């Protein structure tokens, strides 16, 4: 494709947007619109750009965006009314920054929780601003009367200045701001930062487990949304010549949510479209006698229907349709992962692996690792050393403490006492994210992947953590053009044999492929130590054999600890086996020796004493 066409393709949405917005004034009179309505729609659209980043892409539903909208608006308005300056540019900037600062505070308080609690917290803090506005700060905000006397925009850019004194002028100003805001938001979404955000929405836990500092990402997008809101609020004051107190109201936050859903969350344009629908319904229905007063109720019903049945909103639905029309038929999944032939007879005596015994340096060690839960000791004083390049299996009967021990190795749970050392450094209690950054990665027993992202996008999240560290506010470069990242993705996909499926959404993979992706995610962080939690869980006998082969291939260059119940898998892979029983290590040896060990045999058949009572 030649350069101009390539550029056109990349910027297609912006170009389309500009065309629509430029043409709109010409059509306005025919569709019963005015500049004023258009301006309001654009303002809501701007407000919504930030919100869509927060909710549509990162999955954080906030009902308190009005706080930032109002704050930014009143700060900007006050600056102009006081007047501290006549330059609207300065006023808007200050307003935006003020909103962002408030965003940091509220974000810090609200992001401590998730889901419903987060939503309610944002709602509560949003309401707090209503009260703040009315009482203590009424002197500056005009309380119930709002702040009037906002002058027409006078924009100074150093040398030259622009004066805007009609709705048409305001329209073009808003168009510029919106298009720039849209472009910025799109770049953010296409950046590494954006990729992580989208993954957080799907499975925040896994994002943290592959080494990203999820709280920082959430806080950053929260502040960005606040900034957009603040800017939109400032523009509202300029639009109306007056800053109304209802900018702070719950209604405003709610309207934003409804508009975004109707237009389609996760599309960036959704809020704009939703605002258009809202305002049009309002003006349209007002004039129809009888149901004029019902317009909001009708809107509410549409909203409920959309959320229930058709979740993508207008734009979202269009995008889905578009993708379906363009999609190629997916290649058939592996034959190996389809179906299961149960083997009725156990295989013959197991042969252990032919690998030479590990002699490298100790890379991972635990000393007297203990975990107690109240009166119950799950892991009791386990000391353990892992050598570079080894494949170690940890086995034991039910309740032996394997999972607890394993989760401590992965730094998912902190020990009650004892330490864990990684290449000589104490990593006890660092947490899974930091430990992953250092080089220890875990794959989960139950698939923790990102279902609506493609295999490529899945692996990308893990590779990003390795390439960029636990947090990088890299918002402007396009992540799909990053050579280092792409190389990492290709390598990981090849290692787990998913290179043919890179562009398939993870949800469409067969179970065995998903399991491979699961391992691939851990591998993509290029760990030195790979912790595998029951990698063959839920697999048919054929799949198990394949998995063992795959793991043997991966094993060169990585040290592996595997928790497993399937003894064939264990014997097919392990160099050494550590046996836990009642939380204690009762044996650690080569596979053949373990198999012959009488204590181990007795432990499995349960003829030894069991736990102390809780």
């Amino acid at each position, binding site marked *: 494709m030649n350069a101009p066409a390539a550029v056109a393709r990349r910027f297609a949405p912006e170009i389309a947007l500009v065309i629509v917005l430029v043409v709109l004034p010409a059509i306005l009179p025919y569709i019963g619109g005015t500049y004023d309505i258009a301006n309001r729609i654009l303002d809501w659209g701007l407000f919504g750009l930030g919100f869509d980043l927060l909710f549509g892409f990162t999955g954080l539903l906030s009902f308190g965006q009005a706080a930032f909208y109002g704050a930014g608006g009143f700060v900007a308005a006050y600056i102009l009314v006081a007047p501290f300056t006549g330059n609207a540019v300065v006023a808007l900037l200050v307003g935006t920054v003020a909103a962002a600062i408030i965003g940091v505070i509220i974000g810090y308080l609200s992001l*401590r929780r998730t*889901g*419903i609690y987060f939503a309610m917290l944002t*709602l509560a803090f949003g*309401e707090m601003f209503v009260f703040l506005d009315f009482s203590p700060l009424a002197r500056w905000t005009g309380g119930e009367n709002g702040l009037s006397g906002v002058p027409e925009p006078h924009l100074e850019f150093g040398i030259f200045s622009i004066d805007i004194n009609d709705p048409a002028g305001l329209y073009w100003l808003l168009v510029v701001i919106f298009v720039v805001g849209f472009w910025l938001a799109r770049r953010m979404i296409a950046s590494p930062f954006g990729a992580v955000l989208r993954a957080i929405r799907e499975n925040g836990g896994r994002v943290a487990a592959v080494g990203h500092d999820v709280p920082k990402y959430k806080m950053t997008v929260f502040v960005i949304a606040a900034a957009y809101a603040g800017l939109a609020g400032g523009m509202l004051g300029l639009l109306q010549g007056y800053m109304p107190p209802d900018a702070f109201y719950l209604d405003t936050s709610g309207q934003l949510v409804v508009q975004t859903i109707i237009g389609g969350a996760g599309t960036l344009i959704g809020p704009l479209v939703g605002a258009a629908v809202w305002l049009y319904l309002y003006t349209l229905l007002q004039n129809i006698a009888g149901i004029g007063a019902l317009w909001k109720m009708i809107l509410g019903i549409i*909203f409920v229907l959309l959320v229930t049945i058709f979740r993508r909103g207008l734009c979202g639905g269009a995008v889905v349709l578009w993708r379906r029309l363009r999609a190629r038929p997916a290649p058939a999944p592996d034959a190996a992962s389809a179906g299961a032939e149960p083997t009725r007879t156990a295989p013959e005596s197991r042969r252990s692996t032919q690998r030479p015994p590990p002699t490298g340096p100790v890379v991972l060690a635990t000393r007297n690792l203990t975990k107690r839960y109240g009166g119950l000791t799950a892991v009791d004083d386990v000391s353990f050393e892992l050598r570079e390049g080894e494949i170690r299996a940890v086995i034991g009967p039910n309740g032996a403490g394997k999972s607890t021990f394993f989760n401590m190795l992965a730094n998912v749970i902190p020990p009650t006492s004892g330490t864990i050392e990684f290449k000589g450094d104490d990593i006890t209690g660092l947490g899974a994210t930091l430990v992953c950054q250092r080089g220890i990665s875990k794959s989960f027993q139950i698939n923790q992947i990102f279902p609506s992202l493609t295999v490529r996008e899945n692996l990308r999240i893990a590779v990003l953590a390795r390439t960029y560290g636990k947090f990088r506010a890299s918002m402007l470069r396009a992540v799909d053009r990053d050579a280092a990242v792409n190389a990492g993705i290709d390598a990981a996909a090849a290692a787990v044999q998913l290179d043919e499926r890179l562009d398939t959404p993870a949800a469409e993979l067969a179970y065995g492929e998903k399991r491979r992706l699961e391992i691939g995610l851990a591998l993509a962080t290029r760990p030195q130590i790979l912790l595998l939690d029951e990698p063959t869980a839920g697999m048919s006998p054929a799949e198990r054999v394949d998995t063992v082969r795959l793991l043997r291939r991966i094993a060169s260059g990585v040290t592996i600890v595997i928790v497993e119940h399937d003894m064939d898998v264990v014997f097919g892979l392990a160099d050494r086996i550590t046996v836990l029983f009642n939380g204690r290590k009762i044996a650690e040896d080569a596979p053949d020796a373990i198999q012959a060990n009488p204590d181990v045999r007795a432990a499995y058949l349960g003829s030894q004493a069991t736990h102390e009572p809780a």
Partner: protein
Amino acid sequence: MGLTIIFGALGVVNFAHGALYGLGAYAGFVTYEYTDSFVAAMADGAAFLLVVGIIIERGLIRLYYQRPAEDQILVTFGIGIVLVEGLRAIFGGLNRNMPAPSWAAGIVNLHVTLYPTYRIDVLAIVAVALVVLYFVLYRTRLGLIVRAGIEDQLMVNILGINVTRTFLTVFGLGAMAAGLAGVINAPITTVSPDMGADILVQSFVVIVIGGVGSFWGAVVGGLIAGEILAITAMIQPAYSQVMLFAAMALVLILRPQGLFGAEGRQ
């Protein structure tokens, strides 16, 4: 006033989350219906809400149990809008006044201050309601099922009890409590379609402070919130509401699961 907070506690000694958003709408909804006999108003308000609550749960909410939390919030929010707007459409947007019943009118001299009789009565009604609620939860079979169901829904199912039907009841009860709260509150504030929004926020603050899933937590939370409001109102009225939020923020930072909270979600 603090009493209002306790109403929040009533509606929100709550079991099924998600009803929260509807709460506000319900409160408004009911109060409009009846402007005659107060006792009848209360009873009708409560019963009507119970029915509405059940209908809504059956019809819509139950589709959402498997859906992510955000969807549940959105749908209850949407239902709230529809109900509030429906109210506005039927009754108009102006505020109405519902007078206190004649048997509760007048003023009581409390030595410290003069206090409307109705509010004392309200306190009494709330106390009674709380006692009734306690009784139901701790002394009846239904209460037993509910308490067990909150803790381990599956096990209750295994023991032969149809838990979904119970949760339906719980949702209905929550709605009913909200309706009751709305009616009782009506003479104190004005009645309008939007009256629910305040209650919504205040009840949420109560939950955060008191902790989720705990009967006593809600009560204590309500009392604390009420006290904060009352005390700050005497000192510096402008800041009273804000102080409430500050208290909530404090609890969040220091003890995220609330004073009595059972779960610590993160």
